[in-house]
C-alpha cells in the first residue's frame, strides 16, 4: 500500500473527507458571522449560543411535539432567526453608532445568559438525538466507509453556503445589501429601507447558526456548552478568511477543517491549536486576512 509519511494513502483520504465535514460546520458558522459583521459591524459573540439553540430546538421539537428531523431542519432555524430579530430590534440596533466593543460585549453577555438558562433547565450532560432513519448507514467509498449522515452534512452546508453567496453577490437584493453596507445614508435616500434590511440580515445570520445546530445535533452532544467549544475556532476562521468576506469565510472554513483533519493523523495533540497557529501566521503576513480588503 502506498504511504505518505508512514500513513497509508487510504487512511489519509478518509481523514481528508472527515476534515471536509468539520470544515462544513466551520464554513456555515463563519459565514453567518461574516454576513453579520459585513452588514451590521457587530462581532456576534452570541453565535455559539444561537447554534446551540438550533440543536436544542431540534431536540425539544422531538421530545415535546414529536417533530422529526426534517421538520426541525426547517422550523428550528426559523425560530432561531426570529429570536435573532428580536435581539436586533430590542438591543443591537442602539449600538451601531458606537464602537465595535459594545456590540461584542452585549452579544458575549447574551451568550452567557442563554447558555446559563439552558444549563439551569436541562443540565450539562446533554440530550439524546439520533440520526434520522433515511440517513443512517454508510457509503462504501472504497477507501473508507462514509456515514450517510456526514455526506448529507457536506451536501447541505455547501448548498446553503452557495445560495447565500449567490444571493449576496449575484442578485438585486444582494446588491441593495452591499450598497447599504457601503453607504447606508445614500442607499436610504434611494428609498431602500435600510433598517429593515439590517434586521433581516441579523435574523438570517442567526438562522444560519440555528441550521448548523440542527445539522450537528445527531452527530455531536446536544448540550448547552456545545457552542462555546466551537465558537472560538470559528472566530479564528473568520479572522483568517478576512472579516466580512463571504467567499473568504466559506473557503477558509472548508480549508481549515481539512488541515485540522490532517493534524489529527500526524500529530493529534496539536489538533486543537493548529488553527490558531495558522491564524497567527496569516495575521503577520496579511493583517486583513486571506480574502479581506484592507481599509
Amino acid at each position, binding site marked *: 500500500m502506498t504511504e505518505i509519511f508512514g500513513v497509508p494513502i487510504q487512511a489519509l483520504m478518509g481523514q481528508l473527507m472527515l476534515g471536509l465535514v468539520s470544515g462544513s460546520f466551520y464554513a456555515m458558522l463563519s459565514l453567518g458571522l461574516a454576513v453579520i459583521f459585513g452588514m451590521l459591524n457587530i462581532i456576534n459573540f452570541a453565535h455559539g449560543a444561537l447554534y446551540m439553540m438550533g440543536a436544542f430546538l431540534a431536540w425539544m421539537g422531538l421530545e415535546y411535539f414529536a417533530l422529526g428531523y426534517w421538520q426541525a431542519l426547517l422550523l428550528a432555524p426559523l425560530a432561531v432567526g426570529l429570536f435573532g430579530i428580536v435581539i436586533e430590534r430590542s438591543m443591537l440596533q442602539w449600538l451601531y453608532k458606537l464602537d465595535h466593543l459594545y456590540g461584542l460585549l452585549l452579544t458575549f453577555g447574551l451568550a452567557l445568559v442563554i447558555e446559563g438558562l439552558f444549563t439551569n433547565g436541562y443540565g450539562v*450532560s446533554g440530550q439524546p438525538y439520533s440520526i434520522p432513519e433515511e440517513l443512517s448507514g454508510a457509503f462504501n467509498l472504497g477507501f473508507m466507509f462514509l456515514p450517510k449522515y456526514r455526506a448529507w452534512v457536506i451536501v447541505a452546508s455547501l448548498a446553503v453556503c452557495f445560495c447565500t453567496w449567490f444571493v449576496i453577490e449575484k442578485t438585486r437584493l444582494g446588491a441593495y445589501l452591499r450598497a447599504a453596507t457601503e453607504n447606508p445614508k445614500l442607499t436610504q435616500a434611494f428609498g431602500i429601507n435600510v433598517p429593515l434590511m439590517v434586521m433581516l440580515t441579523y435574523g438570517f445570520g442567526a438562522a444560519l447558526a440555528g441550521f448548523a445546530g440542527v445539522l450537528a445535533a445527531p452527530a455531536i*452532544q446536544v448540550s448547552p456548552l456545545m457552542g462555546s467549544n466551537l465558537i472560538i475556532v470559528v472566530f479564528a476562521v473568520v479572522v483568517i478568511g478576512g472579516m466580512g468576506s463571504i467567499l473568504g469565510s466559506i473557503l477558509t472554513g472548508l480549508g481549515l477543517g481539512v488541515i485540522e483533519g490532517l493534524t489529527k*493523523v500526524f500529530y493529534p495533540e496539536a489538533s486543537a491549536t493548529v488553527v490558531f497557529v495558522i491564524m497567527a501566521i496569516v495575521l503577520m503576513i496579511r493583517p486583513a486576512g486571506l480574502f479581506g480588503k484592507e481599509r
Partner: protein
Amino acid sequence: MKRKLLCISIAALLLPAAGNVLGQAKPAALKLSDGMVKIGVLTDMSGVYSDLGGQGSVTAAQMAIEDYKAQYKPNFKIEMVYADHQNKADVGSNKAREWFDTQGVDMITDVLNSGVALAVAKVTQEKKRIMINTGAASTRLTNEDCTPNTVHYVYDTYALANGPGKAVTKAGGDTWFFLTADYAFGASLEKDTSDAVKASGGKVLGSVKHPLNASDFSSFLLQAQASKAKVVGLANAGGDTVNSIKAANEFGLTKNQRLVGLLTTIVDIHALGLPTTQGMMFTEGYYWNLNDDTRAWSRRFFAKQKKMPSMLQAGTYSAVTTYLKAVAAAGTDESAAVMKKLKELPINDFFAKNGKIREDGRMVHDMYLVEVKKPAESKEPWDYYNIKAVIPGNEAYQPMSLSRCPLVKK
C-alpha cells in the same frame, strides 16, 4: 404563614417535653464544637460535572440528614451548607477555609474534580477537620497525597480501570486501543487500564491522544478502527465520552469492536440513549436498579430530583450517614476521634455491603461491571444495565501492598 410558624415553634417546644414524659433516657450530651455538627457539600453546581454531583449531591446530603434525624433522634443539632467550587482549585480551597474558620463546618463531602479535591484535602488536614470525598477520581488522594483526614468513598481511577481491564480481556477482548484525553487524568486512566490488560494476558496496540473538549471525534475513531483492536477503551470523561460514543456508533465501529468506557456513568448513558450505547461495558460503584434497597432509596431521590442518582450522589448520602453514625459513636466531632470510629465501623446500607475504610482512607466496597442493555431489554425509563459481574472490594481497589501512602505502615 404566621400561624404555621407558630405551630412549628410550639411543636418544637413540646417535643423534648414529650420525650421526657415518655421516659426516654437522654444519652450523655456530645462534646461538639459550636454546639452542632455541620456538614458542607462542596461541588460543581453549574459546570461540566454538575449532573454527576451538583444539586443532586446537595439533595442526597439533605435526605441523609433528615433520615438520620428521623431514625436515630440524635440529641445534637445537625446543619448543612453547600457551595459551588466552579471546578477551580483556588475557589474550592478558599471556600473550605472559610467554612472551617468562620462557619464551624466539621466535614466536607462531594468535592468532585480531582484538582479541587487535592487542594481541599490540604486545607482539611491543616484545619484538622474531615473530608469524605465522594466525587473525585484520582488515586492520589489515598496514595502520595493521603492524609489522616481524608476518606475516599465511592470510586477511583484504579477501580474503574481495573474491572473492565481484567474482565473484558479475560472474556476474549485481548487487544486494546485507547482514545485518551490529553491531560493527567486521561494518561493515568490509560496507564492503569493498560497495566490491568497486560496483567491479564492482553495486548495494547496503540492509543491516540485527543485534546480536551474536542467536539469532533470521527478522525480519532477512524484511527481506532484501523488498529483492528478488539476493544476500544475511552480514557476520557463527560462530553468527550459522549461525543466519542456518538461518532463510534455512526462510523459502525461498534459492529466489530467493543467500546469500553473508563469513566462512564448512568448520566452519560441517559444523555445518549440506549440505541447508541447498547453493549458498552464499564465499572460503576452503584446502580439504582440493583436490589429492593437501592430501588427504594433511588425512587425517593427521583421524586425530589427527577433523575435517578449517579454513584456520586448515592455515595454522598451514604457518606453523610456514615459520618453522623461515627460522630455519635465517638461522642464528639473532634476529627481524630471520629476518623478512628470511621475506620472501625463497617458500612452497611443500600450503597455498600460490608464497606470498610482502610488505613489509607480508601473506602473499600464492591464495584459492578455493567453492560448497557439493548433497547428491547429495558423495561422502564432508567433501566439501563445488565450486571455482568460484582467485583469484590478487595479485588476492585488497589491492594495495600502497592500503597504509596506514607500513613501505611509496612
